[in-house]
């Protein structure tokens, strides 16, 4: 059937099988562009400050977004299978960056650290989430599961997670560190655990949480959580932010105040209105209808991702796709629950929607990889 001599398999990374275009994941691309479009519109509104032009922040995000969309082409052009091994190399590189950031970069405002690349300020904790998903998928795809994983089976993947976790905690970036832990849990639950393991992990988790609370959390981090549990105790700070966010969302009512007409965002009542609280601005300006439309697109994209996992041609692909979906999903859920007043302010962005280059690029990579897996759902004979 195929032309073997026309499509040499010697350079799989560079070879592009044009038949792949036919299997290109247009659904995912459409969903991605829809979500990105809404994100840009929202960013335009939330950062506009009265001039004739959009804010520089808007243009910066626009360029990164365009770059990300273009990046999808090379991302789908190689076989994700290569990541099975390459993933560990990336993992090592990210660890080096995290070490560098943790020990050689001054902390800005007490939290996340950037590595200044001149044209771009990289937050190494963002790609860390991605490479963790890749190496865990790679590890578990080789693991014989049988009746489920035991505690001992978790040591190796546990270490793989713990190293970046600790490095990110040092920064200290509680939100991202927690994301790593959540991803680890999601992955092992997906892979299958023994009941005894689940029980043991539960005990371990609770103990860890207590220790964490008592010894490892910084004062302000503890405050955030305490404030959330008892918002009246601190109405002007953390509680204030959540209250203002709820006011913004609630005052959007059914159809919103209209694009650029939100008062909570434009008058600075909302904190972090273009980053963590970007969706508050959206909910305020577009109301319930607009919010449900956005969430519909967003969650359909996630479901589509699960579908990609289901239709992946191999276990690595399925695990990778699942992990990538979970990476986006948990960040989104945590961010949205925070915005709607059900979680404390933890500093986790809404992927694709919040302003921030590192997060956006990482999420774009996730989506690109998902499309890659989707395109190779069947063994293409070439």
């Amino acid at each position, binding site marked *: 059937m195929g032309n073997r001599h026309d499509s040499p398999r010697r350079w799989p990374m560079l070879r592009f099988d044009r038949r792949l275009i036919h299997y290109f994941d247009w659904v995912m691309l459409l969903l991605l562009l829809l979500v990105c479009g809404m994100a840009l519109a929202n960013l335009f509104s939330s950062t506009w400050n009265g001039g004739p032009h959009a804010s520089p922040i808007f243009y910066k995000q626009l360029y990164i977004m365009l770059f990300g969309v273009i990046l999808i082409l090379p991302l789908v052009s190689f076989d994700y299978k290569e990541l099975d091994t390459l993933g560990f190399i990336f993992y090592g590189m990210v660890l080096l960056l995290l070490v560098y950031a943790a020990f050689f970069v001054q902390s800005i405002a007490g939290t996340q650290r950037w590595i200044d690349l001149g044209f771009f300020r990289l937050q190494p904790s963002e790609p860390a989430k991605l490479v963790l998903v890749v190496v865990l998928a790679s590890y578990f795809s080789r693991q014989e599961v049988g009746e489920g994983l035991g505690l001992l089976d978790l040591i190796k993947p546990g270490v793989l997670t713990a190293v970046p976790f600790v490095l990110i905690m040092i920064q200290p970036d509680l939100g991202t560190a927690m994301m790593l832990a959540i991803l680890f849990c999601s992955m092992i639950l997906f892979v299958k655990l023994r009941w005894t393991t689940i029980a043991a992990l539960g005990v371990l988790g609770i103990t860890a949480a207590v220790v964490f609370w008592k010894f490892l959390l910084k004062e302000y981090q503890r405050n955030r959580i305490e404030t959330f549990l008892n918002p009246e105790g601190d109405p002007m700070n953390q509680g204030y932010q959540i209250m203002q966010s709820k006011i*913004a969302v609630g*005052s959007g009512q059914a159809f919103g105040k209209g694009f650029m007409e939100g*008062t909570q965002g434009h*008058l600075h009542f909302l904190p972090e209105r273009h980053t963590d609280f970007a969706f508050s601005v959206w909910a305020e300006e577009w109301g*319930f209808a607009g919010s449900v439309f956005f*969430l519909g697109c967003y*969650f359909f994209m996630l479901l589509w991702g699960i579908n990609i996992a*289901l239709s992946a041609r191999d276990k690595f692909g399925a695990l990778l796709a699942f992990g990538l979906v*979970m990476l986006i999903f948990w960040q989104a859920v945590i961010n949205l629950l925070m915005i709607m007043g059900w979680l404390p302010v933890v500093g986790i962005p809404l992927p694709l929607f919040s302003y921030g280059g590192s997060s956006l690029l990482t999420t774009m990579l996730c989506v690109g990889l998902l499309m890659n897996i989707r395109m190779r*759902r069947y063994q293409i004979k070439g």
Partner: protein
Amino acid sequence: MKNTRNRRRKVEKSARPPLLPPDAPVTIITSSEDAELDFLKKRSLMSSAMIIAFFALLVARLWYLQIQEGETYTDLADNNRVRYVEVTPPRGNIYDSEGREIVTNRPSFNVVLSRENNRLDDQLVKKVAAILEVEVTDILDRIRKMVGTPGHLPIRLAEDIDWEKVAIIENSHLDLPGIRIEVVPLRVYHYGNYASHIIGYLGEINATELENADRTVYEPGDQIGKMGLEKLHEADLRGEKGREYMEVNALGFEQKALKGVEPLPGSDLQLTINMELQRAAEEIMERDDKAGAVVAVEVNSGRVLTAASSPQLKLDEFIGGISTKAWQAMLDDPRHPLINKVVQGQYPPASTYKIVTALAGLGEGIITPDTTIYCPGHYRFGNRTYRCWKKGGHGEVNLLRALSESCDVYFYQVGQKLGVDRLAGYAQRLGLGRKTGVDMEHEKSGLVPTTDWKKRRYNTKWHEGETLSIAIGQGYDLATPLQICMMTAALANGGTLYRPALIERVRDPDGRILKSFAPEVQERFVGQGQNMRLVRAGLVEAVNGPRGTGKPAKLKGITVAGKTGTGQVVKLKQYEHLKEEDIPYQYRDHAWFTCFAPAENPEIAVTVLVEHGLHGSSGAGPVARAVLEAYFKDRLAQGQDVAYMLVPADAENSQGVN
């Protein structure tokens, strides 16, 4: 090459169906185990269920926040963003009876700084200080005082600056970001301190006033009428505050102006007071340094044309709050500038009371116009001797002479025959002993003693001898200048006692008349027309007769009728031998003069009281004359003799002699 490419395309086309059979099962998994595929399916299903569950949860939460509680949060959002500042309305103007401005507003220009953030521009402060010619520290102090107040409230940097500075600031608008000129109405008193007791003054609302005030109308810092008409007609004058709404940001600084509500100016008051008469009265009191009261009313309506209390209240001392020192000085002043003597001063009415005694004597049949009494200069009653003011005595006097020469002995005897209670009945019907109800504060009611009163007050019997003092307006008798004036007016108009009125009309800013003066009759003293005419004749004689006591009030061309009075302050033997000028001020007698004119057809009644003015004739007469001259100015200038041209007002009401 070309061939190859073509072939490849062909291959692709032909290759597609087998590569992706539409119904191909998803089985080509590396491990290719059914169990694994089942497992994957189960996990995907669970993951999808979780994702959908969270989606549903988020939508439910959105529903709750946006639909169910949407209104609440909208209110919260509006409360967040909308602030307002109140705009003071211009207060209503006050005009006199002829439409002359007494109190109006002028625009005053304040310099205000609208804050956009908490930063302070040093250069700006320096520039503003230079323009205003004040120290930089003054400006900084004012700014410092406002730190911590809501950010949308502007900071007042200077008040009431002159026009040149306004022009400089307006011209360098671009140079002075955030600096605005605020226009605030300020009170202007066109007649200075004239009529100050009845006009009153404004001041910042105090804690007690705030407690009793309508809090939707008044706020701390507001100006409120503190005295006089400014206080009594506060509701008419104040108008309605406007509001400037603005959108503020999270720090409370103004972002943009929203539609506001214009203030509604207060209603204007037109008074019955004629400021030219008022000026005449106050000028002469001021010139001669007299303390006392001058009242003039329109005889046939009760309109108060003049109500002066001397010394004047210095209004400028009250603007912006009076100092304790100045206040104490006024309290200690023996001339009592704080007292509005027109209604708050109570004095023995002295000989002006003889009008009452004469009317009572005629009305009760004790005397006729022809009854004569011999006056030897004193009257012996019981074991006491009651003196006439004229030591040598008046000799044989009838009613006309008794009134015109103010013979005490005549009225001792009339009073004695009347008795105190009958006399009191007449006094009360002429409005004495009770408040007139005029628009002035803290009005006193005076005192008309009766036997009952004495029993209640002192729990003792009335002594006959006391009636003699009462008959000539001494003893317990007390009256305010306004009461005497209203009594005189009633006498002049034939027996109608009007309620004295100060307000001619209240007019809202659109020109609608809200309230209009209508004469209010308090008492009609019927059946006394002839008697009143007789008393009036006595009063005409008092001013115009050869031996009349009221000669200083005589006018050429206008017949004035009047009665003098000299009110004893204290009866002390030690001063009796002194010359009048040597008696200490506070022991000197009060001087009364009450009159009306023209006698033939009375229009105006004037009452003058000069505290410690010694003699009614010399102390109070000229003041009354000055007011009358001002009132009749045109007619006097034309030399027009109005006398006898008009029919007396009580011509028809002439029955009832005896």
